[in-house]
């Protein structure tokens, strides 16, 4: 296993573009901290985002995992190109000739995906802890460790998404087209969702229960948007006569769906590689 990781690490560490994007990605996660410094004047009242409870434990876990998950798009570029480059440099062929089995090849890529996800999660935990300890109104240990399922959901979400990128990289063979394909896939999922919701199953929740099984939708379902959960937004909404009744929890079946997709993508990648002549 270590050998496979070493092989992939050797490929990535000398690739300047991959290095720059990876570093940018991790820097972006730390930039969540910058939200703390956002201040604006609201009718003479000083308004500081950090004081509105977004960094309160355990809400911070929800908020930070949601925000940090956006940065995954950067790493998606690295993952897609690390797959597609093997085709465009024709090094995949050479790797296999040199004695790497197809299983080991997929293994080394997927292990890298896992390592990236673990690193992101650890990074996020550190950033959240620092922000939380500095700004949270509640610092009791039992509160800090509650709602940690968001962190697990974040990790699963990353693994699932990167496995999808890995599959696209192998399937499309060209990084730019693979990223385009990812975008098209996202649009198609949304169109199908809109069609189901507003045409086929109008006025019912059947559409949602179908769409939750789609790969990208299932990943975004894991961590729902945290903004309407904030006190100040809820009270503002109440004044306008709106009432948000939303389920923000992480569901075990959501995690299972994403994990099943992950397995499918890894399996399909291996199948493609096995079937294809190089």
């Amino acid at each position, binding site marked *: 296993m270590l050998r496979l990781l070493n092989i992939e690490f*050797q490929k990535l560490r000398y690739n300047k573009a991959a290095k720059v994007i990876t570093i940018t990605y991790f820097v972006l996660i730390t930039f969540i901290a910058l939200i703390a410094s956002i201040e604006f004047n609201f009718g003479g009242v000083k308004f500081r985002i950090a004081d509105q409870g977004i960094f309160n434990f355990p809400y911070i876990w929800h908020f930070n995992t949601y925000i940090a998950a956006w940065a995954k798009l950067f790493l998606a570029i690295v993952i897609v190109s690390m797959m597609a480059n093997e085709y465009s440099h*024709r090094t995949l062929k*050479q790797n*296999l000739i040199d004695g790497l089995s197809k299983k080991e090849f997929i293994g080394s890529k997927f292990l890298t995906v896992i390592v990236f996800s673990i690193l992101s999660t650890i990074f996020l935990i550190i950033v959240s802890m620092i922000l939380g300890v500095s700004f949270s109104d509640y610092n009791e240990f039992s509160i800090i460790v509650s709602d940690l399922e968001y962190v697990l959901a974040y990790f699963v979400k990353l693994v699932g998404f990167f496995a999808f990128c890995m599959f696209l990289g192998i399937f499309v063979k060209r990084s730019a087209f693979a990223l385009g394909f990812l975008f098209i896939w996202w649009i198609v999922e949304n169109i199908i969702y809109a069609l189901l919701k507003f045409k086929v199953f109008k006025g019912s929740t059947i559409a949602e229960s179908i769409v939750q099984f789609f790969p990208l939708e299932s990943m975004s379902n894991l961590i729902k948007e945290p903004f309407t959960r904030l006190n100040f937004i809820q009270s503002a909404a109440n004044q306008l006569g709106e009432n948000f009744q939303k389920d923000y929890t992480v569901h075990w079946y959501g995690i299972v769906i994403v994990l099943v997709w992950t397995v499918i993508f890894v399996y399909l990648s291996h199948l493609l590689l096995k*079937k294809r002549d190089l």
Partner: protein
Amino acid sequence: MENILTLHNLTKKFGPITAVNDLSFTIKKGNVYGILGPNGSGKSTTLGIVLNVVNETSGSFTWFDGNTSTHDALKKVGAIIERPNFYPYMTAAQNLKLVCQIKGVTSEKIEEKLEIVGLLERKDSKFRTFSLGMKQRLAIASALLNDPEILILDEPTNGLDPQGIHQIREIIKKIAAQGTTILLASHLLDEVEKVCSHVVIIRKGIKLYSGRVDEMNASFGFFELKSNQNSVLKDWLTKHDGFKSHKEEDGKIIAFLAQELDAENLNRQLYTEGIVLTHLVKRKESLEEQFLQLTNNLN
């Protein structure tokens, strides 16, 4: 002798085209093999199959008498097929280190192998800055990293300038002299003739011949004869059982032997018959003539 690679009835179809058709042969340790065939005859496809990058349609192959899985066997093989493929953003040494990791060998031999192919002073240059000849030499160095039991080379001199071709051939000869089994695919006859002891000839995916280069043609060679009495000579040749056939070409009579006969003997026989020769040469068909004969027989 130990078998390194055995092919059993290997067939590969690309849609309606059959690239390799029911191909069987065995590679034994210590010999230098050539796979000879015109462009598009299925050489690279055959190598692709045994190297695990092309899937066979039917048939099978075994490495080292089937004692190891294909990818483990490939760790004991050094191979370059078609163009050299490396990571352009890595240096020569970094690329070779990666190959070492894949093959599971230590990286201490990198400098030694770079020395063999004459690239030691360029080891820290990025691969993308290399010329085609240098890339090809780096590929050979990479194939040698694990001190392979067999070295597989697919058209190693393709696209190189004369100097590059010469360098590559020298390297191949050096390696062959050390006793490494070599499998060389080429459409260049002289290349195979110069380097190989055994040859497999394929055309349109079908095996035409496999065996020793010098036994390729069962013929005993031919005589080029000239005499002032050519018609008498021709009559004599027709009657003699030792000759299969003869023909006249530019005033010379080419007589093909059906059995062993040396020039001295022939000369003596003819002289006693009263035929005086003005020209007598005994020759063997060159590999090129044999190759053309073999490939033409099929049409």
